[in-house]
């Protein structure tokens, strides 16, 4: 049966601005399916984003949305969640927005363990601003500002999030479209800060500079590098060379920030 995406889309906004073959549309579809699975009410769901290609996503979805300053999605979203704890707050953005410009906000949102879900679409580059290298551009790969290859080692977003204290970390790819909504559902249900990294493709500014002939080649690369966590347990370190683990990578229960803050308010009231 065909899935009715229209009921979650703002009328008259399509076609979207993303380039032909960009995976952000696939991720947006996954998010809509996840919202439908959880039966999230539009008035009780807030999608917050910064600046960038991926951050244009909230403009198309018909619920409470907030498009904020570059990299500051986590800061604004924390404000939304503190003021209205009953809201389901979902953040979205790209790798440059989340880990470079907003790197500080990102790690501290992870540390605080506030009940939100951050969907990071990692396309290895700053797409909208003209293809500059981001902290996620792999070493040696080319961008508009590194035409002879990027000398920097790249971030592993999932490890960064785990290290900073996020309590749910998952990774998917735009190729594994069926898995995206399942990961997002699990992330939203988790009480605490959840990070879902989706490996994506950017054919326009990343692909053509790094000798990917087509969108299909980029999608097939995502298929080749992804290894599910369970399958990786049986593989040797040599076999895992150059591969990326997908699925739920980390999950733990820790005190959640809103609940802890409510206790602080109680204590302050009792002290008077």
């Amino acid at each position: 049966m065909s899935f009715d995406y229209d009921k979650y889309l703002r009328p008259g906004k399509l076609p979207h601005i993303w380039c032909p073959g960009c995976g952000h549309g696939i991720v947006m579809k996954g998010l809509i399916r996840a919202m439908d699975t959880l039966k999230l009410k539009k008035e009780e769901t807030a999608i917050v984003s910064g600046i960038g290609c991926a951050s244009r996503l909230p403009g198309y979805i018909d619920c409470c949305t907030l498009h904020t300053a570059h990299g500051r999605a986590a800061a604004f979203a924390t404000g939304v969640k503190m003021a209205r704890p009953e809201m389901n707050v979902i953040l979205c953005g790209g790798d440059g927005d989340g880990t470079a410009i907003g790197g500080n906000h990102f790690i501290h949102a992870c540390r605080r363990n506030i009940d939100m879900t951050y969907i990071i679409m990692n396309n290895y580059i700053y797409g909208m601003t003209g293809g500059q290298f981001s902290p996620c551009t792999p070493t040696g790969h080319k961008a508009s500002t590194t035409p002879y290859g990027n000398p920097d080692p790249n971030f592993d977003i999932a490890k960064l999030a785990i290290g900073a204290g996020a309590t749910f970390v998952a990774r998917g790819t735009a190729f594994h479209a069926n898995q995206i909504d399942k990961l997002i559902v699990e992330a939203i249900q988790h009480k605490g800060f959840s990070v879902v990294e989706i490996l994506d493709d950017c054919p326009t500014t990343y692909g053509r500079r790094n000798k990917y002939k087509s969108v299909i080649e980029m999608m097939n690369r995502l298929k080749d590098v992804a290894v599910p966590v369970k399958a990786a347990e049986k593989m040797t370190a040599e076999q895992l060379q150059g591969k990326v683990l997908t699925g739920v990578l980390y999950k733990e229960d820790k005190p959640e920030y809103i609940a802890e803050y409510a206790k602080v308010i109680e204590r302050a009231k009792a002290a008077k």
Partner: protein
Amino acid sequence: MEKKLPKIEIIEKYCKGCHICVEFCPKDVLEMKGFYASVKNLEACISCMQCELRCPDFAIKVITE
């Protein structure tokens, strides 16, 4: 028993011609006709919904009964 064929609706206004649906169709049902995707061989369609799932542009609907 006669196989019930689905209806594949392609919204040309949304299609950006990225070839994803054509390449990932396991039964070779779709083709590129000029800039847009179009249906070549509907009889082969098994309603696996891969094209609808993967289309980044919300341009394909596979309607089954």
